[in-house]
């Protein structure tokens, strides 16, 4: 299968990107300054991420659509305000996660942002669940550009006036060169920021304007270190069809009133796990030295019994040390629990810790 390229591919090349294949796309892992510099620049200034490989699914419909989507997602969509966004999941009937996503209410339906590797399968599942009653467009004519970090609001506001008035996890339409862009105040780095859905033809010129105003291109490498420091799950690592949202410690994302009555896909298992406790649970892990415990590193208790596995592990540039997340048996999930990580045949000490590793600075309630 031919590798796909986003509308910013040439811009990546011009910025000396190193490319990797990711979910069938040629994507920049880093640019010339490297992951650590890119990571720190995002935390201190503003970074641009091409996330056009992600799925932008528009579903059009009225109150019937809301009812039908509530049978799928564990959300109170009836009371979701226009242009408000929620983090959620597409689950199977055992509450295993097909994908995690952001759903935003639009005036004529919903916009759902899906992971690149999952989007085609999600589309099939949703089409089948919704019995083709609604118009659904997985829009590959639009690019998705994230701008993240404390200076992003000032930079973006120069180009799209009044973008600074958006609250976190809400969006709106803006006009750029006579075309409509949909902008949400959101992101996946633990920083204040925005995601901009823009036509493919305008994506490059728009991104160049962001660069001219002081933002910089940031690759997938730094995106991963940023999200891990922020304690955020990544599909295929912390989330899969073998893991439920309760096990992944994402109960906060499930609307409270939906937990009482269920009625969404996977609700029986979700409600049971909340009542009885999940057997395994996602934790933060801080190794004691500088050693990095990568994905699939085995986790042992102090008696050297196997209790779990690392799902993501890297060096956190802002915390200046190794960090990891993983799943362990519930009884070993308390903060400060001493654990051992087996790396290259030797066991090294680490501690269970709270998340995030790096404190977020989201903007809440600017209005």
């Amino acid at each position, binding site marked *: 299968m031919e590798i796909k390229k986003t509308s910013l591919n040439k811009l990546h090349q011009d910025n000396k990107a190193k490319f990797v294949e990711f979910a069938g796309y040629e994507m920049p*892992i*880093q640019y010339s300054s*490297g*992951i*650590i*510099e890119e990571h720190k620049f995002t935390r201190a200034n503003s970074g641009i991420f091409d996330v056009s490989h992600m799925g932008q699914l528009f579903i059009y419909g009225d109150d019937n659509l809301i009812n039908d989507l509530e049978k799928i997602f564990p959300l109170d969509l009836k009371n979701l305000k226009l242009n408000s966004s929620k983090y959620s999941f597409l689950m199977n009937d055992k509450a295993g996660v097909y994908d995690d996503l952001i759903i935003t209410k639009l005036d004529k339906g919903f916009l759902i942002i899906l992971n690149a590797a999952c989007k085609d399968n999600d589309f099939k599942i949703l089409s089948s669940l919704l019995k083709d009653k609604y118009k659904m467009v997985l829009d590959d004519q639009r690019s998705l550009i994230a701008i993240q970090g404390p200076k992003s609001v000032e930079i973006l506001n120069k180009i799209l006036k009044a973008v600074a008035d958006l609250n976190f996890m809400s969006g709106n339409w803006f006009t750029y060169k006579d075309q409509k862009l949909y902008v949400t105040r959101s992101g996946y780095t633990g920083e204040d920021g925005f995601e901009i859905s823009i036509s493919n033809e305008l994506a490059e010129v728009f991104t160049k304007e962001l660069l001219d105003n002081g933002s910089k291109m940031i690759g997938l*490498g730094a995106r991963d*270190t940023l999200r891990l420091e922020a304690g955020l799950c990544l599909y295929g690592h912390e989330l899969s069809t073998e893991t439920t949202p309760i096990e992944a410690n994402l109960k906060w994302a499930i609307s409270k009133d939906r937990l009482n009555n269920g009625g969404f896909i996977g609700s029986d298992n979700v409600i049971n796990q909340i009542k009885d406790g999940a057997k395994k649970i996602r934790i933060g892990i801080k190794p004691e030295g*500088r*050693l*990095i415990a*990568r994905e699939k590193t085995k986790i042992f208790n102090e008696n050297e019994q196997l209790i779990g596995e690392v799902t993501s592990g*890297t*060096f956190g*540039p802002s915390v200046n040390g*190794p960090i990891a997340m993983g799943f362990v048996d519930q009884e070993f999930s308390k903060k400060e629990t001493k654990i051992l990580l087996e790396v*290259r045949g030797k066991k090294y000490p680490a501690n269970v810790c709270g998340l995030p590793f790096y404190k977020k600075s989201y903007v809440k309630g600017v209005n």
Partner: protein
Amino acid sequence: MSEVKYSKEHEWIKVEGDVGTIGITQHATEMLGDIVFVELPDVGSSVEKDGNAGVVESTKAASDVYTPISGEVMENNPVIVEDPGKINSDPENEAWFFKLKIKDSSELDSLMNKEEYDKFAKESGN
């Protein structure tokens, strides 16, 4: 007199008498990206030509370090354990990995000189 030779695994060795100082090349650090962790062979241990002699980890992944020459490790470099970023900033000088007592100097014949290595690195692409 000292000479520097290079391996296909992107290590360099500086030879002074029967002592070899070993590190990884500039080209290797460019391929690896930001290095954030390093594990070195213990002093007193014996390493075999082309065998494992430590690990470097970048933000992206872990990679094995090989020794281009057999010998006994006499010294390793605490500076890079403390500050692995030095491997990126000065890989072929201050950020040496370990020194060894060369067991068989004829092993050096299989290694490349600077010119050969530069050509090899360029052709090996990434």
